[in-house]
């Protein structure tokens, strides 16, 4: 096999990884710990959230021994247009590294920079407030814009989509989020669909996901007066299905599939800010062909009310 054919094979295999990139970090607008879509924003007020994410995937059923580490610092800004309508922007800064082993040689390709900007709006359709509890249902819709660089290069040429920081495609998304909150616990759930479109002869499979989150107040055990800080124990689950990718119009049999993550975490909640951490552990990965499996996704974030 010539070096060129090695490279061709290498690039093609790496293309297969884009699906897991989308599953792992691309869908950043719906962070599994206290989803971005459920963030509360008052009228004419701003809310900011900064997430730091490490997504490791090294369980490779193929002989390439692929090993991917995708790090991201994701900035989220929310604004309350009125008491019903809120607008959000999500902008990641990415640092991607992909290692493969070809003919006994380890090859590493990487890129960093600002990724694709996602903007979406959420409208609270149902709102029921009772003493010490509330219930909300809110549909949302938005689009991921190709603001990230999708033409990063290194000495070997143009990087494969899995290592690029941008996708190059305009990808609409929509869904609905529900929240039931009491003084003792909070339950959030959402279902969403992201339509991934074609760019650079590559089209990631569409993604549908169902997320659920339970936040249970662990401290203080009993509430006194005023507004004490809360510590929540968090348990979340994310069921993610992705269609197969398409490369130059042809379906990629080594991409897409179903993943189920279970996510234990913790939150410290005050009036002005929230700090939180969680680790997404894949408990089911029913993937097509040689699609790369996730090891874990770790998240640490802070949130501020202005």
């Amino acid at each position: 096999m010539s070096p060129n054919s090695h490279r061709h094979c290498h690039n093609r295999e790496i293309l297969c990884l884009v699906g897991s990139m989308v599953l792992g970090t691309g869908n950043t607008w719906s962070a599994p710990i206290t989803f971005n879509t459920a963030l509360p924003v008052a009228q004419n007020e701003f809310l900011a959230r900064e997430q730091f994410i490490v997504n490791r995937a090294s369980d490779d059923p193929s002989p390439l021994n692929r090993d991917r580490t995708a790090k991201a610092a994701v900035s989220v800004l929310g604004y309350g247009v009125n008491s019903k309508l809120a607008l959000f922007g999500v902008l990641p800064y990415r640092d991607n590294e992909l290692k493969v082993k070809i003919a006994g040689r380890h090859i590493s390709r990487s890129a960093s920079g600002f990724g694709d900007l996602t903007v979406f709006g959420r409208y609270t359709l149902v709102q029921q407030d009772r003493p010490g509890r509330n219930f909300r249902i809110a549909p949302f819709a938005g689009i991921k814009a190709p603001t990230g660089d999708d033409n990063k290069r290194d000495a070997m040429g143009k990087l494969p989509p899995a290592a690029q920081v941008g996708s190059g495609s305009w990808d609409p998304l929509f869904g609905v989020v529900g929240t039931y909150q009491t003084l003792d616990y909070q339950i959030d759930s959402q279902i969403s669909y992201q339509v991934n479109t074609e760019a650079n002869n590559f089209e990631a499979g569409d993604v549908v996901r169902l997320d659920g989150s339970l936040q249970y107040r662990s401290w203080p055990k009993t509430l006194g007066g005023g507004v004490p800080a809360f510590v929540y124990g968090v348990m979340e689950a994310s069921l993610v299905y992705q269609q197969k990718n398409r490369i130059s119009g042809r379906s990629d049999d080594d991409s897409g599939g179903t993943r189920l993550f279970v996510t234990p975490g913790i939150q410290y909640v005050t009036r002005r800010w929230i700090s939180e951490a969680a680790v997404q552990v894949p408990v089911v990965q029913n993937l097509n062909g040689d699609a790369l499996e996730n090891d874990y996704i770790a998240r640490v974030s802070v949130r501020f009310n202005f």
Partner: protein
Amino acid sequence: MKIIRHSLAALMLLLLIPVAQAAGSSYALQVDGLACPFCAYGIEKKLSSIDGVVDTQVNIKTGEVIVTMGEGIPLTEDLARKKVKEAGFTLRGFSQRSGGDAHVPE
């Protein structure tokens, strides 16, 4: 020295202004939907933006928000309801706690 003394006196007067304002009426707002500390900040901020408000105290357990106005400055139920709604919650009860005119329910 004279200038310093006068400046200090002016500063003392400025510091006394909030104390004088705190002598006004207090209102108890019963707010439905309040269930976490992060939500409480939004309602504090909205109510504090009302002209004449000198203090707001939230009790998250009871859902009660005490709003203290400057002396002689009333808080209307309509305005309180509007601000609570802007914060994303629902005003269930409104009553005056001390001083000022008696509250007339709407």
